[in-house]
């Protein structure tokens, strides 16, 4: 009789009966759909448990790990002023991509928080605008590399499942690799700026200065002189095929 009643009960969403449910993250609600303790049926809302929302530790081991890497060695300098995020090429496109906030999470070893950003954490285009402005010379652009490495190490499964490629960005990458045989950071930067409608800034003083500087110290020309990689045509074909296969796999998964 009791069993029958249970079967008829409509299946509730996890934590559905909690007032102001939207304030609590999914991960923080523990609830067993079917649970019987000592013969008493406590399924669903009868066993709901909300984990404490108060952080109880700062994990400095994590900070030290980052500090020992070449790219992350200046993590101890960051004082959270926000100039990097304010100057970032990517943030206006993905508001959740926030170099300053990521650096803070890394400083405090807050992996729980970082985990929420796995889908956007790798989106830095390497334009170095942040590093150019950072008043403490933290080199936030390279901190983003440290972040990528870290996420790959600590959340390998999530990286597999959550990293969704942005089609526009992917096209820019693909075209660049097939067209030039290498990534061209300047072009990546320009494309990202165009995509966010910031073409005017490309003609601004800071960008112009950077271009003059690169032309003057020869970096701009050495990039042009590099040309395409050795034996490019066959590589290009192989890569083209690889990308085509990848696309088919991805679209069949979607």
């Amino acid at each position, binding site marked *: 009789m009791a069993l029958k009643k249970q079967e008829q009960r409509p299946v509730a969403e996890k934590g559905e009966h909690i007032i102001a449910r939207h304030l609590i993250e999914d991960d923080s609600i523990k609830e067993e759909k079917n649970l019987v303790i000592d013969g008493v049926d406590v399924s669903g809302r009868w066993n709901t448990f909300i984990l404490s929302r108060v952080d109880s530790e700062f994990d400095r081991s994590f900070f030290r790990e980052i500090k020992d890497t070449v790219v992350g060695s200046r993590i101890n300098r960051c004082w959270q002023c*926000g100039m*990097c995020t304010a*100057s970032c090429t990517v943030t206006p496109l993905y*508001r959740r991509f*926030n170099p300053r906030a990521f650096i803070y999470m890394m400083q405090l070893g807050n992996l729980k928080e970082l985990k929420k950003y796995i889908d956007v954490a790798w989106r830095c285009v390497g334009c170095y605008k942040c590093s150019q*402005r950072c*008043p403490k*010379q933290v080199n936030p652009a390279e901190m983003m590399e440290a972040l990528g490495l870290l996420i790959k190490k600590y959340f390998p499964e999530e990286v597999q499942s959550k990293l969704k490629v942005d089609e526009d960005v992917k096209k820019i990458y693909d075209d660049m690799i097939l067209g030039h045989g290498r990534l061209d950071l300047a072009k990546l930067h320009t494309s990202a700026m165009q995509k966010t409608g910031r073409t005017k*800034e490309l003609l601004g003083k*800071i960008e112009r200065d950077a271009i003059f500087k690169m032309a003057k110290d020869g970096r701009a020309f050495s990039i042009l002189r590099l040309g395409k990689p050795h034996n490019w045509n066959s590589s290009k074909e192989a890569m083209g095929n690889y990308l085509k296969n990848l696309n088919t796999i991805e679209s069949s998964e979607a």
Partner: protein
Amino acid sequence: MAENILVVGGGPAGLNAAVMLSELGVNVTLVERDSFIGGNPKKFKYKFLFPDMQPADNVIGELIKKTESGGNIKVYYSSEVSDFKENGKKFDATIKSAGGSETKTFDSVIVATGFEHFDPARDAKYSYQLFDDVIDIKDLERMMGENNFVRPSNGQPPKNVAFILCVGSRDRHIGNQYCSRVCCTISVKQAIELKEHFPDCEVYIFYMDIRTYGFFEDLYWQAMEEHDVQIVKGRIAEITSGPNNTVVCKGEDTLLRGPFEIPFDMVVLASGMEGGPQSPEISSKLGIELDEHGFLKPENITLSPFKSNKAGIFLAGACTGPKAISDSITEGAAAAMNAYTYAVKNR
């Protein structure tokens, strides 16, 4: 026979040193680079001073009056120390002015050459000098002194104004790692003055830290609690031109986590203090030490902040680092006392 003491620089620190020495009966020679005395407060026409908003004339005007009326002070305007030599325990200095050159022997020397305002044009991201409506605190101080609070671009009252703190200070790129100490307080003071003048104008302060140390904190509270000045936590990374003749501040609201681009009628940059070209010049001319921040270096920063590393040469005011007028005046008095003691001992 009365002592002869040389004071270089006629700002608040130098003037107070000169006045105190003259009251002791010392023959004071005051060398001032500009054609007037009173230092930066006079040059930029400061009108009301923090912390108590008293008229600057009460302080600067008073010091100038005492200097000019004190019979023992000889002021050389538009002049410089062109040559300087030690002479036993005394010093031979040549003073060059429009009236020619004069060499005199001094028992001791006080250096009070002060500071220069950081030139915000050196930091391209703030677009200073590119847009008329981007000014800095010394410009606004001068504008207020001339009773001219309006937007430089069109002469209209501003509807909203942004203050940006730490311009040219606390920034490795610019090369100034130190805090300029007074720019936070000047900014809240000017925010109050703006609100008093234009009650409908919205005033925002973009900050990383607000350092209105000691009792200066009162002004900060007053700005928020009596004048509705809004503070926003985040440093500004760029200033561009916006619609309807505005300037856009691009920054991050670090508390809310997210970028913003907000148009303002006027932006005021809280540019800091620097040792200026005069600090290294006087350092090499007098053979006294310069510190790593570009200011003159005291012998012991805690025990004797008013002494240079050379016996008989004393320091006072902003030439040893950013400070407020009251500190500069105190140091002027301390240096005067020490310079007098040295002179009397070596009579």
